[in-house]
């Protein structure tokens, strides 16, 4: 009976990793680290925000937005008699009047417009029960809360923030942030979504106070 043929296969042992497997990645790492002081590891520089003015059209991504005016009022009455009041005693409401046109091929949430608006933290306060600052968005035409805006349509709305009594400035340094379109996202269940991005424009805007 013939003895079974034994084939000896040479397999790499973890302790016997070849020299090339160590040196090449190490050289690559050194090259990356060497370029770091020159910006090798930094993302591309973000351009500074452009000046923000009233009546200026800004392309945020899903919407082109124009700020018409900024108002400070004691309260806002919605359709049906519901009233929006400030969160704190003697506070007021900060209203940012906007026109926002959906420039995409799909319905877009008007909340994206509200979320894009920023400003000094001292000028606003959370609504009762909220931890974060959130703008409420109401349509001017029918005084109802705005929802989705269909393609090609322009929403005329007020973005409403609660303003504490301690803030009484005549101008506000408002900012508008843009959105970038996320085609694929392996880490979430939201591919093809607009994601809030950097500030596109910032500037002092006058606040009209109405009693």
């Amino acid at each position, binding site marked *: 009976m013939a003895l079974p043929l034994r084939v000896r296969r040479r397999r790499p042992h973890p302790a016997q990793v070849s020299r090339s497997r160590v040196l090449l990645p190490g050289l690559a790492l050194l090259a990356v680290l060497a370029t770091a002081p020159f910006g090798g590891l930094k993302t591309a520089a973000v351009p500074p925000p452009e000046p923000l003015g009233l009546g200026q059209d800004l392309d945020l991504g899903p919407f082109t937005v124009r700020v018409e005016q900024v108002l400070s009022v004691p309260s806002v009455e919605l*359709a*049906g008699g519901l009233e929006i009041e400030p969160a704190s005693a003697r506070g007021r409401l900060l209203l940012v009047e906007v026109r926002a046109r959906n420039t995409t*091929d*799909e*319905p877009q949430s008007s909340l994206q417009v509200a979320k894009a608006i920023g400003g000094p933290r001292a000028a606003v306060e959370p609504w009762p029960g909220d931890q974060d600052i959130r703008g409420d968005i109401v*349509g001017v*035409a*029918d005084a*109802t809360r705005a*929802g*989705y*805006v*269909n*393609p*090609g*349509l*322009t*929403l*005329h709305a007020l973005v409403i923030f609660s303003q504490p009594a301690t803030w009484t400035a005549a101008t506000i340094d408002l900012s508008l942030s843009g959105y970038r379109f996320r085609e694929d996202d392996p880490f979430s269940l939201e591919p093809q979504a607009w994601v809030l991005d950097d500030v596109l424009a910032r500037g002092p805007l006058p606040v009209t106070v109405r009693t």
Partner: protein
Amino acid sequence: MPSALCCRPTSWPVTPSSPREAPGETVALPYADVRLAGMAIATDLTGPAPSKPDGRYLVLDLEVTARGEPLRGAPPDVRDRDQRRYAVSPACAGSLTLATGIPSRVRLCVDLPQSAFAGATLVLGRGSQDIEGNRRDAVAEFDLGLSPAGATTLWDGARPLSAFAAGAIPPRDWLGR
């Protein structure tokens, strides 16, 4: 006149199937019978919760009966001739949510710019665009039959209509016959 391109077969891949149905004819989906009873353009919606559109409302009155089991939350949408998608307004029926076997009148209101009316199509299915759409399911597509001249005529004749969602008893200005 509106007509129905109904219904895509349930096998994959999904393709449009049958020739155009006669206007106003009931379309038999596996899960519902649907009839487009009437159509108009509204300047605004009246009632306890009035609503004004950013463009004008395309108002579509449907007669729908769920078959076999309750029909849950299928949000319809309108496509223009370039396949842009327009969501229905919550001022009327936001989705088709119906009990089994009970004929219902459903009003859909879609806020559209004037350019979107000509060549518009109503798409009804059970799936959500945000999940997987209507993949592998039967879908009804109603070609609303609006030519550019027809759309302009409807646009110029727009008037206020009632905000209505769904129910067995339609509003007084029901567009169906």
